């Protein structure tokens, strides 16, 4: 038992040391990212015919509350040539109806659909010449991956971008990504954007007008998590070309390569991670020079789950998707043929992400049992817990430093204090819940339970009004 307790302690130290190393790569990159963002103006590029055109794919399932605002936001991006393809994935609500009414859409008599990737048969494609860049696909429910594949089959442009229907893109987000693509078009196969939590922000006309932190605790915890994952993790992983995921909420892809790998894999969540693993595999097996990049200055704002039930469902789904991807691609782990992906990213994800909750929880239980049996001093238990807490907190502070060095989105000293507090509170229950949800996700996977779970939406307008109301008294005070 003692040996296992020691093993768990060293495991926690090792996982955090690996994370420190990745964060060091992020720190090495952050000043370049800051300068790139600060010293680039997009007034010429966003009107240039030299920018590659992009098809924005927006899968929508029961999104009647948010979809109009999101589509309006997408139709007004600072980008010279793009189309918006909304895919109504057999919604049970009136998603298609509200879209048809708002944009006066009519069915296209003979839509030009290429069946390059298998997907559910498309029922109809809606269009209105008044909105020449907007298409709406209607199809039976087949999941998010299937919707993206349907969108690819209709898309007219060489680059595709997947965007969640509950997210809002900043006006410059796409042009920032395109600029990054243009810097190395031959090797860039995918670029991920930064996803930030919109809860608590003041939203007007489909855009975040005033950035603020969420007022509820669940989104607040997620805000600290997202900062750590995106700034602390993804910048570092992308700098060594070991990025394993481009968030489904906002990513840009070369269409030819997505088609070459057979499109998105349906049937399971985690399609955003799966497509990136497939792209890595394809490029490495075919010995093609490539990069999968991360563009933290291209920001997409998303509604974070604000209740326990919705959040736990989301995290269990992520746990299932992650496990499925690891099992499907276990052959890549420790395989030098797959370079950074095989020697670092996959082993890290299997040992330190998928199996993390098991080691942490069993290690803690072993030490508690050992203490109760009076076989060791309580100090050992305290040391284990302190290592867990402090090393994790160092990483959270590192992520906040990265934010402060580069983007400085939060403009109040109180925001910094709140972020520091919640980064610490996270270790008193929330982190443990995260482990539990992941284990529950694994159990669901083993039981073949593949339901999406409940996901309710709130209108952006309601959220914006609530945030504005909350901001006004604060200002007058």
């Amino acid at each position: 038992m003692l040996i296992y307790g020691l093993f768990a302690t060293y495991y926690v130290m090792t996982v955090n040391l690996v994370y420190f190393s990745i964060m060091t790569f992020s720190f090495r990159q952050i000043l370049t990212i800051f300068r790139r963002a600060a010293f680039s103006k997009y007034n010429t590029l966003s009107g240039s015919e030299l920018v590659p055109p992009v098809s924005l794919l927006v899968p929508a399932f029961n999104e009647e509350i948010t979809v109009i605002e999101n589509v309006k936001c997408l139709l007004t991006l600072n980008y010279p040539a793009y189309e918006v393809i909304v895919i109504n994935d057999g919604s049970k609500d009136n998603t298609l109806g509200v879209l048809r009414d708002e944009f006066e859409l009519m069915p296209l008599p003979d839509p030009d659909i290429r069946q390059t990737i298998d997907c559910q048969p498309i029922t109809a494609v809606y269009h209105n010449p008044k909105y020449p860049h907007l298409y709406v696909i209607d199809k039976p429910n087949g999941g998010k991956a299937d919707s993206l594949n349907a969108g690819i089959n209709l898309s007219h442009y060489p680059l595709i971008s997947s965007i969640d229907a509950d997210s809002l893109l900043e006006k410059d987000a796409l042009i920032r990504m395109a600029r990054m693509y243009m810097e190395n078009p031959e090797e860039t196969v995918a670029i991920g954007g930064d996803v930030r939590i919109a809860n608590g922000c003041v939203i007007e006309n489909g855009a975040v007008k005033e950035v603020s932190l969420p007022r509820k605790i669940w989104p607040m915890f997620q805000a600290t998590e997202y900062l750590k994952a995106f700034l602390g993790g993804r910048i570092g992983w992308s700098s060594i070309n070991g990025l394993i995921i481009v968030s489904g909420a906002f990513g840009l892809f070369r269409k030819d390569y997505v088609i070459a790998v057979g499109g998105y894999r349906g049937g399971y969540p985690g399609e955003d991670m799966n497509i990136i693993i497939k792209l890595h595999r394809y490029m490495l097996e075919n010995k093609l020079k490539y990069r999968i990049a991360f563009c933290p200055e291209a920001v997409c704002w998303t509604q974070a789950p604000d209740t326990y039930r919705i959040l736990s469902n989301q995290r269990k789904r992520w746990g299932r998707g992650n496990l499925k991807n690891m099992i499907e691609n276990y052959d890549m782990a420790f395989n030098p043929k797959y370079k950074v992906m095989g020697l670092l990213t996959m082993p890290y994800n299997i040992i330190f992400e998928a199996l993390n909750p098991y080691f942490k929880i069993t290690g803690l239980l072993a030490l508690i049992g050992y203490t109760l049996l009076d076989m060791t001093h309580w100090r050992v238990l305290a040391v284990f817990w302190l290592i867990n807490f402090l090393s994790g907190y160092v990483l959270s502070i590192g992520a906040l430093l990265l934010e402060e060095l580069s983007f400085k989105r939060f403009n109040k000293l109180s925001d910094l204090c709140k972020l520091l507090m919640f980064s610490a509170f996270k270790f008193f229950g929330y982190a443990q819940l995260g482990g539990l949800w992941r284990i529950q996700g694994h159990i669901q996977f083993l039981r073949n339970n593949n339901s999406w779970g409940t996901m309710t939406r709130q209108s952006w307008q309601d959220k914006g009004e609530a945030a504005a109301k909350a901001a006004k008294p604060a200002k007058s005070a």
Partner: protein
Amino acid sequence: MAGQHLGLAIAFIYVCLGLIGIGMLLLFYMKIRYLRIQRKTKEYLRKHQDYFLFLQAHLGDAEELPLPPGKLGDLERRVIQQRVTEWIEQFKGDLQQKLIALCYNAGFVREDLKLLDSLFYGRRIAAAYRLGGMRAAEAVPRLLEMLKHQKYSPLSIVLARSIAKSAEQEQQLRDMLIHLLRHGKPIHHLAADILMETRLDASRLLLQLLKEDHEDLVKVALAAMRGQEGLEEAPALGRFAFALDRRETTA
């Protein structure tokens, strides 16, 4: 044995505590400093509102534009410089020239030229960016030198754009393209977009590039000509593109 492990673990804890302490101090220092700069910037923008209105009203006059009266602090000067540079981007012709002259007379260009010698890379890049904004032709040879020694990165694009904005000779633009394209990346579209920032006669320049032996320069010219209206030699594009494609296919 267990004591050794515990000792190591406790050392790890002390390291973490040290890092947390340093991190927090840095965070508060950076945040307070940033908020102070933000507040001061807003104050200066408010203070000089009348001056900015004066500039707008007298942009068309024959006289040179002055700086606001009185001694200006470093940040105050930077705030004014930033506003004037934004206008330089928006205006063309004589109005733009007057604003550029203001930057010279106010000493903004001189200060940033000095900063190109800074030991700090960040300051050199920031100065290069601002010099491009102010269309500082004197800076071009130095910027070309910087671009020549710059490893390919997003900051190469920043330098190249500054050169394109400021260059007064076609040869400088050609050199800029050569330095930018020497890394072998197929960035002809981006290079064309950068090239079109020039104040020089774009049509003449593109036609000269089309006659180059350097294949990358021809490709940049072809890319830049896409969407350029009124070019008499447009039919020649097809011929060039065809010749290039054929050469690539044969190879």
